[in-house]
């Protein structure tokens, strides 16, 4: 009997460890492939210039338009999503604490929205655009990506706020704080590290998403100067260049992928570092 349990233990351990290492190796392999194929074409020129004539046939220029465009869209959308998401998350966790059923429904609804494929958001954004008579533009792209990342932002913040101990809420009430004071002076501070993670998570999702900007942001070789001009994005830059039959251009698609991956890595690292920095005040 004892022998059987020992075997069971080691088999389970091997299976779990195997799955863990396999997924880590796959991710490392992914990064390796992207780097191997793309690193050769990454150059200073590529990240500092917009495409010149003939760029898509392998001639001079870069993808600054897409890098800047992606930043514009992701930053704009993250900002909007934060403005919408923070009040929602606070409302849920300060005002609705007694309405457990309602909360459960809101959370379920947000989870459904989180799961909706981004192409659906793209299609929805496109329909709204047509209805309002706006062309594919930075504005339309920002709005669509905002819709895509708002549920992520809300649920991520919600999870952080939920972890706040009931005792802290009671202590704050006992001091005679109003709900508004509790929301902004106590909860926001307690949840700050988690909020930073939530914001950067949403930013990362926003900058990497392709389908939502496919119809709504358009594509251009220039950096947009107003909200109503079309804008290029990195995911689409990868998509278009990879579709080209010319090997040099395909290689540049991998280079763009390297740039996107590096941005995401930097954002993730930043999330780690920043939230660690603000952790000292947090009550455990």
């Amino acid at each position, binding site marked *: 009997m004892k022998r059987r349990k020992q075997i069971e233990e080691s088999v389970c351990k091997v299976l779990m460890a195997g799955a863990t290492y396999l997924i880590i190796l796959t991710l490392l392999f992914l990064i390796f492939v992207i780097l191997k194929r793309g690193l050769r074409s990454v150059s200073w020129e590529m990240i500092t210039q917009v495409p010149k004539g003939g760029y898509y046939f392998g001639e001079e220029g870069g993808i600054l338009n897409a890098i800047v465009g992606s930043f514009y869209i992701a930053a704009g959308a993250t900002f909007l999503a934060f403005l919408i998401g923070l009040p929602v998350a606070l409302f849920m966790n300060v005002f609705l*604490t*007694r309405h*457990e059923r309602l909360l459960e429904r809101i959370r379920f609804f947000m989870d459904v929205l989180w799961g909706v494929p981004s192409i659906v958001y793209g299609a929805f954004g496109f329909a709204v655009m047509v209805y309002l008579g706006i062309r594919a533009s930075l504005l339309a792209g920002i709005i669509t990506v905002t819709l895509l990342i708002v549920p992520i932002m809300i649920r991520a913040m919600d999870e952080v706020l939920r972890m706040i*101990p*009931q*005792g*802290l*809420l*009671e*202590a*704050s*009430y*006992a*001091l*005679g*704080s*109003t709900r508004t*004071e509790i929301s902004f*002076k*106590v909860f926001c*501070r*307690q949840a*700050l590290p988690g909020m930073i993670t939530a914001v950067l998570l949403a930013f990362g999702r926003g900058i990497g998403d392709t389908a939502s900007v496919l119809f709504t942001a358009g594509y251009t070789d220039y950096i947009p100067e107003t909200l109503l001009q079309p804008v290029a994005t990195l995911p689409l830059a990868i998509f278009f260049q990879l579709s080209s039959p010319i090997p040099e251009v395909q290689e540049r698609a991998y280079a763009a992928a390297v740039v996107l991956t590096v941005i995401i890595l930097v954002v993730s690292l930043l999330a780690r570092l920043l939230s660690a920095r603000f952790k*000292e*005040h*947090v*009550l*455990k």
Partner: protein
Amino acid sequence: MNETILSIRDLTVSHAQSNILNRINLEIPSHRVTVILGPSGCGKTTLLKCLNCLIALYNGLEIQESICLHDLEILHSCHDLTTLRQKMGLLSQRPYPLPMSIFDNIAYGLKIQGLRNRHEIADRVAHYLDMVGLWEEVKDRLKSPATRLSIGQQQRLCLARGLAVEPEIILADEPTSALDPISSTKIEEQFLALKEQYTIIIVTHIMRQARRLADHVVFMYLGEIIEQGTPEEVFDHPKNPTTQRYLTIGH
């Protein structure tokens, strides 16, 4: 007998048909230490939370009561909850310092009350930290996070934070249960010093603590008040058999 500051009449709290508190009638004397004693789960904490309306945060409770503070009905009426809560400082089982610096923890209550003058805030912060004997320990690191203090210091900080709101009553819910004996003694000393100025209500299950602190003892069991009186009456000549049993086991 002292004047009564809080009087509770027919307080009943029930959850899904079972009573957590059953027709509690209690008069809390002003400027005295009232100790509510009883085994775990007898409704002590619930009673305390009724006093400053924290009970309203919980779901599915049915509450019938009348609690009067200075002859002023506090629940049920549309009384201003924040003002009411400011009249009662709360010290919970384990300290919950606000997620900010030591200084800001005390200043928070002052700012809520509308104090804006920086010098005055600084003076008052020092005053309240001094009142709980924390000033000498923390005066050089007022800006560091409150979470870096030891748990005993945090509890005293929470007490100072409560005092800064200028309450009339201090509610303490097993305030020393998470603390080591030395910190517990310090907190107890604070209570004895504070009863000149405040009315103190302490919930505890530690009989020795009750005996050390109490002017008035209330013994609760299964949601009811079984016996109350001066410490001598309750501890030395308990009339109720349940109290007698609890006291013998506890000794």
